[in-house]
């Protein structure tokens, strides 16, 4: 009999995270008897951001990467991390299902020696703040101290949206909101719930400025070592995982949005067209756009329109 294919997998979310159970159910079990998924969570096997290198050196088979992890080796990927690139979840999914990214994916395989199997949805980021009026446009964000994750790229997202970004570690954000060191933060509904930011903020503007998907990735070395049949199995289970995680994320978002409304938080939709126009303009004129494949932004925008 053939030997089992062992897949060593490293992820940053913790052992108890719903993403971990989803992975084991929808990917691990789906693979069946021919495979053994050895999954490590909480960035215990490899540190966040080092998984790509570990795959390239043959020390790791699979990971659930962020698009920023590819930036050094494939600068063109920066376009996928641009805020307001996608209008909504459906647009994001339609783009990844279409063929507009085929050239970019081929470039990733060639340069980074890994293959992206699927793009599971991990949620949209919104602006949640305390204040006495609804923020509708980039102008309204002027002077608002918005906590953004530390790091140049993240801080620029805040600037491009019109806010004054403040880099504060995730764990210290609650205290900073409480003391008024910041006016707001940008996280998805599940993070707002788990960190209890809803105890302090009174508005959530559903900007959905980042509609984030992970890159569910396998090293080319591992991929090429498998038979075509095995490859097909891994690919179909990766799609299965994508569909399952999409559903989990969408359900969670709906659940917490309803709960926050129940609590009396003002959950509303700002003038996102105004935000989109403003932010994309800022990005196109920044250093971040210089690596974008020419014409790709328009192609992405045109999907489903």
């Amino acid at each position, binding site marked *: 009999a053939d030997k089992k294919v062992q897949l060593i997998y490293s992820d940053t979310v913790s052992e108890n995270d719903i993403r971990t159970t989803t992975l084991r159910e929808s990917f691990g079990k789906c693979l069946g008897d021919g495979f053994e998924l050895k999954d490590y969570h909480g960035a215990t096997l490899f540190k966040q951001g080092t998984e790509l290198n570990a795959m390239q050196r043959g020390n790791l088979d699979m990971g659930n990467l962020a698009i920023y992890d590819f930036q050094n080796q494939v600068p063109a990927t920066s376009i996928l991390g641009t805020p307001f690139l996608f209008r909504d979840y459906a647009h994001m999914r339609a783009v990844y299902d279409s063929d507009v990214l085929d050239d970019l994916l081929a470039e990733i395989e060639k340069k980074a020696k890994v293959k992206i199997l699927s793009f599971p949805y991990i949620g949209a980021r919104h602006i949640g703040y305390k204040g006495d009026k609804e923020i509708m446009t980039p102008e309204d964000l002027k002077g608002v101290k918005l906590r953004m994750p530390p790091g140049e790229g993240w801080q620029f997202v805040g600037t491009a949206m019109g806010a*004054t970004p403040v880099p504060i570690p995730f764990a210290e954000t609650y205290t900073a909101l409480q003391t008024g060191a910041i006016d707001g933060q940008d996280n998805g509904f599940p993070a707002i719930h788990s960190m209890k930011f809803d105890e302090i903020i009174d508005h959530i503007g559903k900007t959905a400025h980042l509609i984030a998907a992970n890159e569910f990735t396998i090293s080319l070395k591992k991929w090429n070592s498998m038979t075509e049949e095995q490859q097909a199995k891994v690919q179909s289970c990766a799609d299965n995982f994508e569909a399952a995680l999409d559903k989990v994320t969408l359900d969670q978002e709906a659940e917490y949005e309803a709960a926050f409304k129940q609590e009396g938080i003002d959950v509303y939709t700002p003038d996102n067209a105004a935000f989109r126009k403003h932010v994309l303009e800022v990005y196109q004129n920044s250093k971040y756009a210089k690596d974008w494949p020419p014409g790709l932004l328009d192609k992405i925008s045109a999907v489903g329109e």
Partner: protein
Amino acid sequence: MKQLHPLLRRAAALPAHLSALLFGSMFAVFILQIVFRYALDLPVGWTVEWVTLAWLWGILLAAAFVIPTDNMIKLDIIYALLPRGARRVLDVVAGLVTAAIFAWTLPKAWDYVTFMDIERTAYMRLPFSWVFAIYMPFHIAVIIRMLLVAWNGLTGGAPVPETHAETHDYD
């Protein structure tokens, strides 16, 4: 060390001053970072990168060239109770084993450090092969230190173990 030529002695003290300089710059840049952010409302990213760089280089430099092997943290209660002859045997065996393991892995470590040329730091855009370059002297220094432990065991030159308070500041 006492019989060293003055010039050589100065050269030997250089890593200590260099690590102090890195440590001092880390301290200064931290203060700069706080001033930039709060007094001038100007968040800067290169500061975070510099302090982590100075920390990595500072400790590996100190570990490679500054701290005597004997001042490193040890679990030497049993060792200290043993008769001198037994300690010498342990020095030779353990020193050679550790030196062998580090020597065996040296090419692999070099392979990793040079491989990291493909990644760059977020702000200063330094190749990680440079950032991690300080690891190589550290790895080599361990081999030499361990061979010296074995040599001292063989020739009977090993000092009597002692506990030094200054190397335990973190407890």
